C-alpha cells in the first residue's frame, strides 16, 4: 500500500463486482497496490479472495468497475481492446495454474507463439525459443506436445513462453497449484531466477509459503481488500 515513484504497477481504489443485486459478488473492494520495477510480489489469499481478479485487471484481461490500474504508467482500465491486446503482447505475460498451452503445438511452438505475434523473423524466433527452452531445462523436449510432458514440464514451457517476448511484467496465477511440492519448488525457483535474470517485475498469486518466502514482498487479500503487507524473509 506504500506508494512508490516510478512503480511498475500502480493500483488505486480498484473495485470489481461480478453480477448484480443479491447475487452480486464483490471481488475487489477498493484495492491500492504499488509494485516496484524488478520486484517479485506474492499475492496471498484464500480462494475467492480476489487474487485472480486483481491479476486479470493488472494484465488487461478485465476492467475495474472503479479505480485505476497503471502498468508502466499506462492506464490499463481505459485501454481499448486493441490496447489491451498490445499490453498483453508487449508488456505483460501470464503464467496460468493450468499452464494454458495449446495442445496441438509442440513445446517449441508454444514458446514461439508470442514471437509470432510480433512477427519475428523465423531464425531469430528459433534462436530465442532454443535459448528459453534451455533456460527452463527443456531443450530435449522441444518437439513434444503438452500431453507428452509432465505437469512441471508444462509449467516450465508456460514460463518460457511468458518470457519469450521479454515482457516487463510477469503475472502468474497459482503457478504451482497443480504441481507436487517438489516440482512446485523447482518452478518457483525458476520464476525467482528468471525474474532476477531478466530484470522483470513479477506479481504472483499464491498461497504456497515457499513461494511467499521466495518473493520480495507479499501482500494479503481478504474478501477483496488488501488488508496487510506481509513481511518476507
Amino acid at each position, binding site marked *: 500500500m506504500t506508494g512508490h515513484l516510478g512503480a511498475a504497477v500502480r493500483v488505486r481504489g480498484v473495485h470489481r463486482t461480478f453480477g448484480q443485486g443479491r447475487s452480486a459478488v464483490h471481488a475487489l473492494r477498493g484495492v491500492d497496490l504499488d509494485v516496484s520495477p524488478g520486484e517479485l510480489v506474492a499475492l496471498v489469499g484464500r480462494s475467492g479472495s480476489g487474487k*485472480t481478479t486483481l491479476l*486479470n485487471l493488472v*494484465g488487461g*484481461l*478485465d476492467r475495474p468497475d472503479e479505480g485505476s490500474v497503471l502498468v508502466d504508467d499506462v492506464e490499463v482500465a481505459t485501454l481499448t*481492446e*486493441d490496447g489491451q*491486446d*498490445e*499490453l*498483453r*503482447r*508487449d508488456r505483460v505475460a*501470464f503464467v*496460468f*495454474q*493450468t499452464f*494454458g*498451452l*495449446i*495442445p*496441438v*503445438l509442440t513445446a517449441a*511452438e508454444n514458446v514461439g*507463439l*508470442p514471437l*509470432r*505475434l510480433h*512477427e*519475428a*523473423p*523465423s531464425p531469430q*524466433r528459433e534462436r530465442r525459443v532454443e535459448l528459453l527452452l534451455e533456460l527452463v531445462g527443456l531443450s530435449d523436449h522441444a518437439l513434444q*506436445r503438452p*500431453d507428452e510432458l509432465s505437469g512441471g514440464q508444462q509449467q516450465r514451457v508456460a514460463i518460457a*513462453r511468458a518470457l519469450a517476448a521479454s515482457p516487463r511484467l510477469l503475472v502468474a*496465477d*497459482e503457478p504451482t497449484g497443480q504441481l507436487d511440492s517438489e516440482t512446485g519448488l523447482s518452478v518457483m525457483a525458476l520464476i525467482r531466477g528468471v525474474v532476477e535474470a531478466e530484470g522483470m517485475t513479477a506479481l504472483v498469486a499464491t498461497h504456497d509459503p515457499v513461494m511467499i518466502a521466495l518473493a520480495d514482498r507479499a501482500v494479503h487479500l481478504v474478501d477483496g481488500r488488501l488488508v496487510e503487507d506481509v513481511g518476507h524473509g
Partner: protein
Amino acid sequence: MGELVRRRGRAQLGVLAAVLAVMVAGSALVGVCVLLTTASPQRALQLAIVHSPDADVQVGVAIGFPDGTDDTDVDARVTATAADPSAVVAQASSLLTGTFGDLPTTLTTWSSTIMQYLPSGGGSLRLAYLADLGVPDERGNLVDGRWPTARGEVAVPESAAKALGLDVGSSTTLAAEPGDRGTGLAVVGTFVPRPGAGWDEDPLTGAGTSQNYRGFIPAYGPFVVAPGGLATSGVPFRRVSLQVQPDLAGASAAEVARAGVAADALEGALTSALGDRAQNVVVDLPFARTLDGAREQRGVTSSGVLAVALLGAALAATAVLLAARMIAARRAPEAALLVARGASRGRLVAQASAEAAVLVMLCLVPATVLALGLFGLLSGAVGLGPVGIPEGGLAPLVLVVTAVALTLGALLVVPWLRSGPSRAGREDRVGVVARSGADLLLLGFAVLAYLQLRDHGVATGSRADPALVVGPVLCLLAGAALALRPLPLLARRADARAAAARSLALPLAAWGVARRPQGTAAAFLVVLATACATFGVGFAATWAQSAREQAAATVGTDLAVPAHVDPLGGGAALHAATGGRVSAVTSRAVALGSRAQQGDQAVRLVAVDTRDADGLLRGRLPSGGWTAATAGLASADPVGGVQLTGHSAELVVSGHVGEDVPMNVSVTVVLQDPDGARAAVAAGTVTLDDAPHPLALAVPSGARVVAIDAQLTAAGGEQDLDHDVQAPYVVDVTMRDATLAPGTWSAALPATTDYVAASMESVTAAEVASGVRVRLEGSASLPGLFWSDGVLTALAFRPVDDVPVVVSARLADELGLAVGDGVQLSLGVTPVQAKVRGVVAYVPSQPRAAALLADEDTLSRAAVSHGSLDSLTDAWWVGGAIPTTAAAALEAQGIGPVTERAAVAHASVDGPLRAAQRAAIALLVIAALALAIAGVVLHSTTALDAREVDVARLRGLGASRRTVRTSVLAEQAVLTGLPILAGALLGALACWAVGPLLAISAEGLPPVPSAAVVWPWQAQGATILALVLGCAVVIVPLAARAVRRATIGRLRMDAA
C-alpha cells in the same frame, strides 16, 4: 440411469435435436425412395398406358386358313372353319374383349378370302380376292359410287379399277379356277385406302395392284363386299383379323394392372382355343408389348431410385456416425468419471442405447409424415400427381422407415463399443490399419462394381437391377474414402510450411488442420455429400441428354409420318404444315444376300434424301455429322423426264406391231412429285393398232414422268401362230401439254437371268406439237409373249446398277463388311446390288438394327432400273424447326400418326415412367446438400466449442480478435472447403466414369448412341455455391461466437 439420460438429454438438447433431424431426414429420404419404387410405378404405369397411342394398347388376333381347299393334308375342321369362321370369330372376340374386363372396347374385323381368278380375256392370268372391311367408311374414302350393301356388289380400289379397266357400273367375275364361270360381281364404288386404317392386314397392303404377287403373278384387290357378306360369297376365308381397341381414359391403376395380367395370358388362351380350327393363329398384342416396355422402364427407373435410396442412407449413416463421435467426445469426461466410479462399459453402452431408442421412437412419426409429404410434393412436381396413400397401405413405408431409423440409432451406440478411449490427436496404429483395410476392401468392391457396370448388357427386366443399384453407391463410397487420403499429405505439407512462417494466424490454422484428426468423419461426409450432389446433377443431365439422343436416333429425324398408300403429293402437305425439309423415305426389312431374318435380326434398309443429311437426319454420331457420313450416296447424274402441268395428265398411246401380230400394251408411268417421292400409276391398256388411244390420269401438281413401263401382251390365241416370230414394235406415249426436261432416256437394265419375251432397242423422247412424245422401239418374241408378258421400261436417267450405302456397325460386324464390299439386297423380288461406302455407328431410326442407309433417289432409280415399279416411299421425314402445332394439324388432316422427335424425347425424359428417377435425383441433391450442411453444423459446433479455451489462451497472449478469427475461419474453411473441392472432383470423375454406364435405355439396354458425359457448369456451380454458402452461414457465426466467448470467463473456467 433413466434419470441421467433424461437430464443429460435436456442439457444437450441442441446436439440431440440435430441428430434427430439427421435421422428423420435419412429415414424420410429412404422412405420416399421406397414409395417411388412401389407406389408411383403403379400410377406411372397407369398414366403411361392411358396416354399411349391407340395403336399401342390394342389386342388382336389373325386367324389364317389354307390358300386352297383341295389340300388333303389340311384338317377337315380347318376347312370347315375356313368356309364359315363365325364360331371361332365369336370365341376369339370374347377372349379379346374379356382382356379389359369392364372397360369399354371396340371390336373391328377384317376378313379376306383366298385368291380367285379374274377373267383373263386371252391374256395372262390375274388374281383378285374379296374382303369384308367391317366398317368400310373407316378403312377407305370413296372416290366414286357407294359402298356395297347387297350380295354380289363390290367396291374396288381406284388403282385396281384403272388397271383392270373397271368403273362404277361395270362387272367382272371371280372364279376358283382359270376359265371357270365364277361368281359375278357388280362394281358399285371405287375408293382409295385411308392411311393408317389397318391396311397392313391387306395382302397387297392397300396398293390395290401388284404385278408380282408372290413373285410371279399379277393380283388386284380387295374387292370389298357388303359387311357380313363374305360368308355368303361361297369363297373360302383366307384370313380373319380381329382387333380390340380399349377405351382406357377412365381406367384405374388396378384395372390396368388386371388387364396386363389378362393380356399376358391371352396368347396362350387364343392359341389353345383356336389352334386346331385354323391353319395358323397369330396373336398381336401391342397392349402387352407396351405394358412390357413400361415394366422394363419401371425396372430401370427403380434401379435409379434405389441407388439414390442407398446413397441417401449412406449419407445419413455417415452423418449419424459423425454425430455419434461428436457426442461421445463431448461426453468423454463424464464417461471417464463414471468408469472411475465403477461403471462398466456395458452400462455406458446401455445408456447410449436407451438414448438412441428414444431418438428412434421420436424419429418414426415425423419421418413417415415427411416421406409422405415429400412423395406427394415430388409426385406432383414430376407429373405423377395427385398421389394419395399408396394402394398397398402405409405398412411398407413404416417398415422401411423403422428399419432405417433403427439402423441409424444403432450407429449412435457404435462409439461406446470401443474398448478404450483413443488418444486425442494421434490415431492409434490399429485404427489406421483397420481403416486402410476397409478402404482397400471398399475399393475392391468398387472396382468389381465398375467392371460389372461396364460389361453390363441387359437389365434384369421389370425389377431393379442389382448392378445398377449397388454400382454407383460403391464407386462413390470408395471414391470418398480415397479422396480423403491425400488430405493428410496436404496437411503435412502445410504443417511444414507453417513452421517457417513468421505470422500466427495461418500457421495456426494449418497446425489445426494437420493435427486435429477429429475432422476426418466430417470431411468424409462432406466429400460424399458433395460428390453425391454433383454426381446427381451431372448424371441427371447426362441421362437426360442421352435419352434425348436415343429419341433422336430412334425417330431418325425431327418429324416422321408413315406414307399414304399413294405417296405422291404427301410431302407438300407436310412442308406446308411444318416448313421443314421434307424427304420421302424407304424404311423396311430387306433380304441381304442369303440373310432374310425377321424381327430384331432383320436387316433394315433406310433410304432418305442425303443431299443435306444434317438438315434432315437426327441422332448424334461419335464423330462428324450425317452429311459427312452420307457423302457420295446421292447420285450426281440428273433426272430428266417429262414435266406435266396441272392435276391431271392426258396420255395418248399409239403404236403398231410388225408381222400383223395382235398385241396390247398396258402403260404405267412412274411419277415423281416435287418432293422426290415416286410412284407408279397405271394409265391403262390399249391395243397397238396404229390408232391413238387417249388415257387420263390424276397427278399431283408439279409431277414429272421419270419412267414409262410398257407391258406387252399378246392378243388372240397361241394356236393362231404356227412358227416363231420376232415382231418389231413401236409404242408412242405422248403426254399432252407437257415439257421435256433435260436428260437422257434409256432402257432399263435387262433381267439377264429371265426369259425375255420382248426387248427394247431404243427409247427416244422429243417435244411434239401436242406435248412430249416418248417412243419405245424393239421386238417381241412369239409365241413366248403368250406365256410371259414383255415388260419394257424406259428411264429418264441413266440406269443405276450399284447403290452406294453406308452400313451400321452391327451389320458390318455380323457380315464382316468393309468399305468397297458389295452386297445384294432384295427389294421385294427385285435384286439390287449395293456397295458399301462407309460404316456408321447406327442408321437413323434403326439404332439397334443391322441396317443400311442409302440415298432415296439413287435407290429408287436402281429399283426402277431393274424393272421394279413398286413404291419405295414408306414414310415421310421432315427436318428442321418444327412448330409445336404441326403434329396436331397434320393429324387433323388425316396424316399420321405423327412421330415427333421432341415428343419422344419429352416422353423419354419427362414421361411418367421415368419421372420417379428425376424426382429421386432431385431429392438426392437436396438431401446431400442438407446432410452436408448438417454434418458441418455438428462438426463445427463441437470443434469450435472445444476450441474456445485455446482461443482464450491465444487472446491471453495478446492475439487480437481478428488474428484469432482469421485463424479459426481459415482452419474451418480448409476443413470444409477441401472436402467440397474433393467431393466436386469425385462427382465429376464418377459422372465421367460411371454416368454413361448408368444412362441405359428405357429397355435396360446400353444406349445408342453411347451416352456422352454432360457436365452442366451452371447447375454444378449453383450446387457448389449453395453448399459453400450453406457451410459459410454455419461456420462464420460459430467462429465469431467462439472468439466472442473466448473471454476472461473462459480462462477462469479453464483455470477451474
